[in-house]
């Protein structure tokens, strides 16, 4: 009864809200998208390099494709940052930070490498980004006591990635 009265009053007055703040408790966390993002950054740099070798800079092909490669590189470097931020901010708790004290530094390194990968077309930088994300994935699966394996991605750029052994 009182609840219904308050609900009606809320319609009229709009009570201030106290947030029982929570992420949607889906519990689905996986660094896979970050790894795909890092691989895509490398692939885009490879395609840019290839384009430079095979087409004149002012050719229609180059004019059309270069901006697309750059755009996808930008988006995927940003995807890496977002995915790592979500796992680090929402999934990782103090217990895991105590167990893996390298995590904050590693996340900071990923953020920086992802930004540098947007600013440049440096393949080595992008490979360093993938390696840092791989290490993050290794730690992530270790927090779940799941073993990992290092395998070559079955698609270009065929760089090594860490997968969980399920």
């Amino acid at each position: 009864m009182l609840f219904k009265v308050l609900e009606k009053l809320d319609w009229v007055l709009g009570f201030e809200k106290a947030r029982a703040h929570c992420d949607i408790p889906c519990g689905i966390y996986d660094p896979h998208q970050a790894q795909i993002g890092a691989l895509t950054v490398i692939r885009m740099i490879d395609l840019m390099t290839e384009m430079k070798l095979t087409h004149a800079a002012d050719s229609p092909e180059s004019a059309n494709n270069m901006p697309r490669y750059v755009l996808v590189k930008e988006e995927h470097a940003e995807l890496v940052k977002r995915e790592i931020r979500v796992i680090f901010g929402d999934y990782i708790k103090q217990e895991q930070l105590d167990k893996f004290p390298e995590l904050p530094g590693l996340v900071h390194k990923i953020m920086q490498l992802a930004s540098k990968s947007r600013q440049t077309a440096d393949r080595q930088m992008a490979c360093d980004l993938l390696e840092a994300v791989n290490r993050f994935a290794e730690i992530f699966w270790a927090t779940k006591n799941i073993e990992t394996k290092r395998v070559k991605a079955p698609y270009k750029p065929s760089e090594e990635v860490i997968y969980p052994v399920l």
Partner: protein
Amino acid sequence: MLLQLLKISGISLYPVYRDGDFVLISKIPIFVNGIHPGDVVVFEHHRFGKLIKLVERLEDGGRSLFVVGLDAESMDSRTFGYVPVNRVLGKVIWHISKK
């Protein structure tokens, strides 16, 4: 403000406090009796605004609170650290639930 009626938004205190429930909060019990583990308090967070959480423990001679939600995905002291007592706007003194 000595008394304030607030509506709960979110599920971090589910199943005890549900989304849409109302709470009456007050500072008076804090002045009289202080804050204790098990109290449910509303406080101002610099990033998330007004939050409602359960006090798990007090630290720093009672000047800081470690607050938690009941849901595993709750954003609370496990994520954003201790809450200074001077940020607390009140303790829940009445919970008006839909049920």
